[in-house]
């Protein structure tokens, strides 16, 4: 099946610093991926790894510096503002803050039907409100509430209802579980999973929560300093991560089984600054497996279905070398 979204070598640069010493910062540094209809693709990474910027760039909220974004076979990164507006009916975005992404003075009923008004879609707004609210499991009388009268989970459901209002083909969800209780997180994820299978949505889910990824994503990409270090089917990556960074992230994920031995891989040092990217493999400053070559040459992403940007991909269940051998 052909992809609904094709991203190729996408770069997003920000210019920072005073006018005289203005420098360019690559928040997203050449990223390629496809999302197929009905598929859920997860973007994982630490804070500041460029996940949100990537999502905003795909949705044209952020200017793309290089590369291309194709949605439903049409290139949208160079499209004019006027021509992209109709495309937005079929590509919805959910933002991090469930309450903050709803207009404070707009009642829930008006918020979820706002897409109809924006795109002048003929519909009975009252019926649509009821349909959408029941679809996300909210009582119909919530239509009269204001965002500040909602809990985080309820506000998130309203956000979901608004996102699916015009039956989009693709939903980009930025941290759909942020700021929610664990039980509510589960509800929201089940809701998203349910809607995806019922409406045949493709989804991009951005998160730093690996449990979320394993719960909903078919494929995933791990981001580090604005690049993908590993992509592939979620199950495979969870079973046998090949990139040391992925392995470290997975080992940091809480394990519910207390009898299972945890082999936590701890990463030394801080995330490097985007203004001072390390030479060679950008992860070598923190990699427990790093060798001489890692500091010299940047690894290429290898593989077809499963891409790994590492000179020395890990064998399954590899544990980090002893301290003495660490460079």
């Amino acid at each position, binding site marked *: 099946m052909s992809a609904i979204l094709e991203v190729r070598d996408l770069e997003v640069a920000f210019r920072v610093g005073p006018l005289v010493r203005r420098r360019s910062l690559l928040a997203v540094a050449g990223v390629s991926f496809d999302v197929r209809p009905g598929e859920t693709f997860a973007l994982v990474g630490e804070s500041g790894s460029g996940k949100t910027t990537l999502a905003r760039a795909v949705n044209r909220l952020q200017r793309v510096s290089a590369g291309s974004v194709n949605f439903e076979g049409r290139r949208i990164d160079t499209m004019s503002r006027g021509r992209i507006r109709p495309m*937005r009916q079929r590509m919805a975005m959910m933002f991090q803050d469930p309450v903050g992404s709803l207009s404070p003075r707009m009642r829930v009923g008006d918020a979820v039907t706002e897409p109809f008004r924006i795109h002048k879609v003929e519909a009975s707004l009252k019926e649509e409100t009821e349909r959408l609210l029941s679809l996300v499991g909210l009582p119909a009388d919530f239509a*009269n509430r204001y965002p500040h009268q909602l809990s985080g989970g309820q506000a998130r459901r309203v956000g979901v209802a608004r996102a699916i209002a015009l039956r989009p083909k693709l939903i980009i969800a930025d941290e759909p579980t942020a700021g929610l209780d664990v039980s509510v997180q589960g509800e929201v994820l089940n809701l998203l999973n349910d809607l995806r299978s019922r409406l045949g949505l493709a989804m991009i889910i951005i998160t730093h929560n690996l449990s979320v990824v394993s719960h909903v994503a078919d494929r995933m990409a791990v981001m580090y300093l604005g690049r993908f270090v590993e992509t592939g089917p979620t199950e495979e990556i969870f079973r046998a991560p090949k990139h040391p960074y992925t392995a470290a992230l997975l080992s940091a994920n809480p394990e519910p089984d207390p009898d299972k031995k945890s082999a936590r891989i701890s990463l030394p040092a801080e995330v490097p600054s985007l203004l001072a990217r390390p030479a060679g493999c950008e992860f070598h400053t923190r990699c427990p497996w790093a060798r001489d070559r890692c500091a010299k040459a940047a690894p290429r992403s290898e593989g077809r279905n499963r891409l790994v940007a590492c000179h020395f991909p890990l064998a399954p269940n590899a544990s980090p070398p002893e301290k003495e051998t660490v460079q």
Partner: protein
Amino acid sequence: MFAADSDAVGAFRRIFAEPLGGLGIVLVVAMIAGAVFADLLAGADPFRISPRDRFLDPSLDHLLGTDHLGRDLFSRVLHGGRIALSVALFSTAASLAIGIVLGLIAGFGPRWLDNILILLFDAIKSFPTVMLALALVTLFGPSLTAVIVVVVLVNVPGYARIIRTQTLALKSAEFVAAAESMGAGTARVLRVHILPNVIGPLLILASMDIPVVIAIEAGMSFLGLGVRPPTPSWGAILNDGFTAIRDTPWIAVAGGLPIILTTLGFTFLGETLRDVFDPRLRGRG
């Protein structure tokens, strides 16, 4: 599509709960009623000159007496209220409309446009009101239009700045990005998503500015820069009374008292409105 709740009724009740708010409402309602039903209430023609009835004392025929041309002062005061009210409402509405548009443009538009507009606001603000009034009257001659233009010029920079600051703060809010991601154009983002969130404090400020506007109109008419005689204006009546204050002090009272009562009424009302709607602003300006 969703019916308004009883917010307005509740607010009205809370305004009356405050003693000054209640007094404010009474004064303002009396003033508006007097202005609207001036013809009914006054009985006499405010323009009819009657040289034989000059400087009559207050009586049942002439509740506030007559002025130096024998015109009925009570009628002139009521009709002067019309002028004051229409100037206040019209110029405040115009200031709000212009201030909101400019403020939204400055806050949401490109940086250079913001800088230009801010410079313009500051330039206007740097003129003292009376100097501005004098300059404009020299240009256009004394008229009601001149009064309105002065008021709009004086008010717009402040209104626009309030809207601009708040718009700037909301520009990067997630709900604005959400509206854009849904495909809303700039006009819709501003009108539907930003304006309702920034207009509240401005409306309160504008209601508190109404007495200032009335005072500007009266002041300019007092100086002969406002409405042209024989149009009745409180400022003009005050000026007439001022020249005859030794013999017939009630004329000055007839011109001055409504100015005092109306400005007090609107001020009390405005301050109570502010306390009711936005307690954070209490104790300011």
